[in-house]
C-alpha cells in the first residue's frame, strides 16, 4: 500500500505572521531555473543603477546639501497624504470605522453609567460609607 509522502519540512514549520520560513527550508532557494536567474539579473540591474546614482551623489566633489531618498519621500507621502484621496467608503471600512470610532465611546459610556448608577443606589440605601471631607468626588 502506498502511503502519502511525509509533509515537507516547510509545511511542518508553518511560518505565520510572526516568523518567516528559514531560507534552508524554502524550495525557492534551490530553484535554478532560467526564469529565476533572469529575474535575479533584472533585480540586480535595478539595484546597481540605484546604487550608482547614490554613490555618484555621495562622492561628488560639490555634494548637494542633502541626498534625498525618493523612496523615503514616497513612503512618507503614501502614509500621510495619499490615504484620504484613496479612501473609499465600503462595507468593510464603514464597519471598521464604527468599531474603532464608536465602539470605545459607547463602551465607556455604558461602563461609567452603570458604575455610577450602582453607587447612587448604594448611597440612597445608605450602604456607602462617605467621609465628610474628600477632595475626590
Amino acid at each position, binding site marked *: 500500500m502506498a502511503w502519502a509522502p511525509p509533509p515537507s519540512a516547510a509545511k511542518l514549520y*508553518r511560518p505565520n*505572521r510572526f516568523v518567516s520560513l528559514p531560507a534552508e527550508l524554502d524550495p525557492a532557494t534551490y530553484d535554478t531555473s532560467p526564469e529565476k536567474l533572469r529575474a535575479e539579473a533584472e533585480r540586480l540591474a535595478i539595484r546597481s543603477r*540605484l546604487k550608482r546614482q547614490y554613490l555618484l551623489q555621495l562622492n561628488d566633489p560639490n555634494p548637494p546639501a542633502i*541626498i534625498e531618498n525618493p*523612496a523615503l519621500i514616497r513612503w512618507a507621502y503614501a*502614509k500621510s497624504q495619499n490615504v484620504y484621496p484613496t479612501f473609499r467608503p465600503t462595507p468593510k471600512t464603514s464597519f471598521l470605522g464604527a468599531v474603532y470610532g464608536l465602539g470605545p465611546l459607547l463602551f465607556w459610556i455604558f461602563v461609567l453609567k452603570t458604575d455610577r448608577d450602582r453607587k447612587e443606589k448604594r448611597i440612597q440605601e445608605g450602604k456607602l460609607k462617605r467621609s465628610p471631607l474628600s477632595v475626590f468626588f
Partner: protein
Amino acid sequence: SEMSKDMMPGPYPRTPEERAAAAKKYNMRVEDYQPYPDDGLGYGDYPMLPNKSQYERDPWYQWDQPDMRHNWGEPMHWDFDMYIRNRVDTSPTVVPWHTMSKHFLLFLSIMLIMFGLGEIYPSYRPVGPKQYPFNDLYLERGGDPNKKPPAVIHYEI
C-alpha cells in the same frame, strides 16, 4: 520637495499600463510589483512587499544605510518603521512557532490551574495557636511587676 506629481504615490492602478508605470515609479520589476488589494482602506498603489523585518536582511552586505539595512531608492515596506531592528523581528526561530506557543500555553495553563486548585482546596499540617512562655509574656506586654500574673498553663501531665 521638487518631485513631480507622477513620481508620488497615487490611486490604485487599474490598467496594465498603469501597473507598469507604477512599478517603474517604485523601482521594481513589473512581475514583482503587487499593490495592496483595492479595499478602499487608503493604500493606493503602494506595493505590497513581503512582511519581513530588517533583521532578516544580510548583515554582511554593504547597505547604503547599514543600521536600517536599506538601500537608497529601494521601495520601503508600508510598516517599515515597525520592522526596523529595534522593534519587531520576524527572523525564523529555531523551534517552530506553533510548538513554542503550545509548550508555553500548556505550561501556563497547568500552573494556573494548579495554583487555583491550591487556593480552593488548601492543604497543610494541622496547626494550633502559638504558645508564649512566661504566662503569655505578661511582663513584656506591660503587665504590672508588683501584681501576681494570671497563671497560664499550656500543658497537661
